[in-house]
């Protein structure tokens, strides 16, 4: 039994080791009695991004909170960032009649800057806690023109690991 345990432990130790050191050979005939040894390892990037959950817009509401896209945790390489791209057709579609729509806009606030999210909008997040707050905006004229019924639309968030600049 002890032998088996010892064998498994040795295997585990070997698999956990990610850096391999090569011995440099120095003897009495070597000119230099010095040798450089490079120790290397690799830390893979890791991050967690939270995106908004499904949202329900109250009837006649001009602005509705849509939550935020935020970098919850990040272990990124220098000069790297997490890029969030938002895509949508910006129309809420009537479930019974797909020609009936309610146009809407998304507004993104990063820091103090607010901008309207257009097709292909993207934002780069680098540090834990970086976030883009989103709101759903529907003009009163568009509410007034809307036919009765249930409407919905899907907003897609694409997350990618990219160069920061």
């Amino acid at each position, binding site marked *: *039994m002890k032998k088996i345990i010892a064998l498994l432990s040795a295997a585990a130790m070997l698999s956990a080791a990610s850096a391999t050191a090569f011995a440099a050979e120095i003897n009495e005939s070597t000119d230099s009695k010095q040798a450089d040894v490079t120790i290397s390892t690799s830390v893979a*990037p890791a991050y967690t991004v939270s995106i908004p959950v499904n949202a*329900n*817009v109250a*009837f006649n509401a001009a602005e509705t909170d849509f939550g935020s896209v935020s970098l919850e945790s990040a272990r990124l390489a220098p000069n790297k960032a997490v890029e969030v791209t938002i895509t949508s057709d910006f129309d809420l579609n009537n479930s019974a009649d797909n020609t009936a729509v309610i146009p809407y806009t998304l507004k993104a606030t990063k820091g103090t800057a607010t901008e309207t999210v257009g097709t292909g909008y993207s934002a780069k997040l680098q540090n834990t806690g970086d976030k883009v707050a989103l709101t759903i905006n529907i003009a009163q004229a568009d*509410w007034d023109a809307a036919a*009765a019924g249930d409407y919905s*639309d899907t*907003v897609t*968030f694409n997350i990618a690991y990219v160069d920061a600049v």
Partner: protein
Amino acid sequence: MKKITILLLAVLIFYVPCMTAYAETPEQKGATISAAVPATHVITFISSGGRIEDVDSTVGGHKEYGRRSEQPFHIIPDDGKEIDKVLYGGEDVTSKVKDGYFTTPPLVADMVFEVIYRDIPVEPVSEPSETPSVHQPSDSPAKTGDTEQAAVLIIAVLLMVFSAALIMKCKNIAN
């Protein structure tokens, strides 16, 4: 055997979190935005001092109407009352009331329709004076009797002038 199992589990626990932390490939997730637009809207009526046709209660009565419909309402003041102000959704629409009728714009939300009434002012009744006045105020219209008097006077004057002329003519012939 138990020891081997525990050891293997320990190795697995140590190994799994390292796998899930890598995320260099792009990922996509979606979120759904939904909204509902009602098929009907409610109009609440406040009409103390009169009634709105087709509405039972004068205060706090309410009815449902189809979305985007235009509803005509007939406002009927009580006896001795008249419409003072009409408010629709808080907006003064008194000028849009014609002959007691008001038609709403397309209904797109719940609304409050309020009519405020006032008493019709009672005009003071002037008692007939015992001594009729001789002179009429310059801005008051002439009455029928006065016109007849003036005509008789003019005819009398003309007759007198005509008679005088006739007498003068007769004297000339006699001479």
